[in-house]
């Protein structure tokens, strides 16, 4: 430190006063980010713990309920996130090499992937909203007919709006339904729109050979749904965990997109180069962690055997 202070004028503008060298500042930032990532891992560990406990003790709930998830969409989202991670890592490389234009393009593409991910998530949530596949008390597989779609695609909002507050307007939703189906679920046919399904819940088959997920058709009785769900009780627990996990993860995706947006803005101003690219690197670490968590969420929630 002593040496450096002798040449105070050489203190670059990006170097905070209490650091002696850019290297020290960079490594401090990196260590700080890794520590923060460890707290994120522990934050998610609570949900993984809840998942593990209920799955170990009641595997039948998970086997039954996961058929309601569309694993094609899950797989697409996995690919989207992996691509975004790749472009993010590439962006860090571009920053290191001082390729400003490429850096901006790659960051923008990464944010775009984030939007794609959230868009698909929105479609999935909306489908569950319509089908009444909601957490806890709101789990009501018959309620698919005519509930309002959530106003926004934000993970938490979809999760947080109790069904009771949504007014029923069959006419409006009828107009919405086919559109979202056609646009979003090419490979599967979620049971959500036809009137004949008023009391019949058809489990959407997952992708691939029919042998895997033979469509289970259950006749759900309004008064005693549990007895007809093939004796599978407490299915709502699965959806509580599903929404909690993907919801929290979705929030992290949004946070990551905002951070990358901020980094993108600074990149466009030309703040980063071979000497200083710490924010790009740290935002990248965060984004990769979000990807990492999804890598586990995908098989745990969508691919249950």
């Amino acid at each position, binding site marked *: 430190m002593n040496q450096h202070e002798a040449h105070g004028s050489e203190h670059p503008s990006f170097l905070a006063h209490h650091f002696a060298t850019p*290297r020290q500042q960079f490594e401090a930032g990196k*260590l700080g980010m890794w520590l923060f990532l460890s707290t994120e*891992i522990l934050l998610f560990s609570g949900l993984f713990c809840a998942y593990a406990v209920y799955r170990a003790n009641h595997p039948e709930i998970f086997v039954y309920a996961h058929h309601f998830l569309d694993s094609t969409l899950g*797989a697409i989202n996995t690919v989207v996130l992996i691509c975004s991670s*790749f472009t993010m*890592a590439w962006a860090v*490389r571009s920053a290191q090499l001082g390729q400003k234009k490429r850096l901006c393009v790659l960051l923008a593409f990464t944010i775009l992937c984030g939007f794609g991910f959230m868009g698909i998530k929105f479609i999935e949530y909306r489908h569950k909203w319509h089908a009444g596949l909601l957490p806890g008390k709101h789990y009501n597989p018959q309620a698919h007919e005519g509930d309002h779609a959530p106003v926004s695609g934000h993970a938490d909002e979809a999760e947080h709006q109790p069904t009771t507050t949504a007014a029923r307007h069959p006419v409006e939703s009828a107009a919405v339904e086919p559109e979202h189906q056609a646009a979003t679920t090419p490979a599967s046919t979620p049971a959500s729109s036809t009137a004949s399904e008023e009391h019949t819940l058809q489990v959407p088959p997952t992708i691939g050979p029919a042998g895997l997920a033979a469509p289970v058709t259950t006749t759900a009785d309004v008064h005693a749904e549990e007895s007809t769900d093939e004796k599978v009780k407490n299915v709502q627990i699965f959806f509580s965990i599903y929404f909690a996990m993907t919801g929290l993860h979705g929030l992290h995706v949004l946070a990551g997109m905002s951070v990358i947006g901020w980094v993108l803005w600074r990149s466009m101003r030309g703040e980063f180069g071979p000497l200083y690219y710490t924010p790009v690197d740290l935002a990248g670490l965060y984004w990769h962690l979000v990807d990492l968590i999804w890598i586990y969420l995908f*098989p745990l929630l969508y691919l249950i055997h």
Partner: protein
Amino acid sequence: MSSPAVEHHHSEDQGHVVSLGLLAGVWLALLVLTVVTVGAIYVNLGKLNLWLAMIIATIKALLVAVYFMHLRWDRPFNAYILVGSLIFVLLFIGFVMMDTAAYLPEIDFKDTLHP
């Protein structure tokens, strides 16, 4: 770490620059592994399916952490943080699962009396 020393004094303040080929390779590997994960559910291995999925996910996670997150060229301490926090996660989940599995009969017993 095992990284070639040449890379390091490339520039004191710049850190390691990962080659584009390596990044693309990791990316492709991740995509292939995703396909493998999805494909693996068509093979019926009973309980092993879960473990297989977890092993593949862990390989993917390692690829991301080691290459995309630069752990290979980073100070080892950052890797220790990651591993350390995972150990605490396992402790947490492990203890809780051990206990809930052991008291499960009390809950099921109640269920059978009051269905």
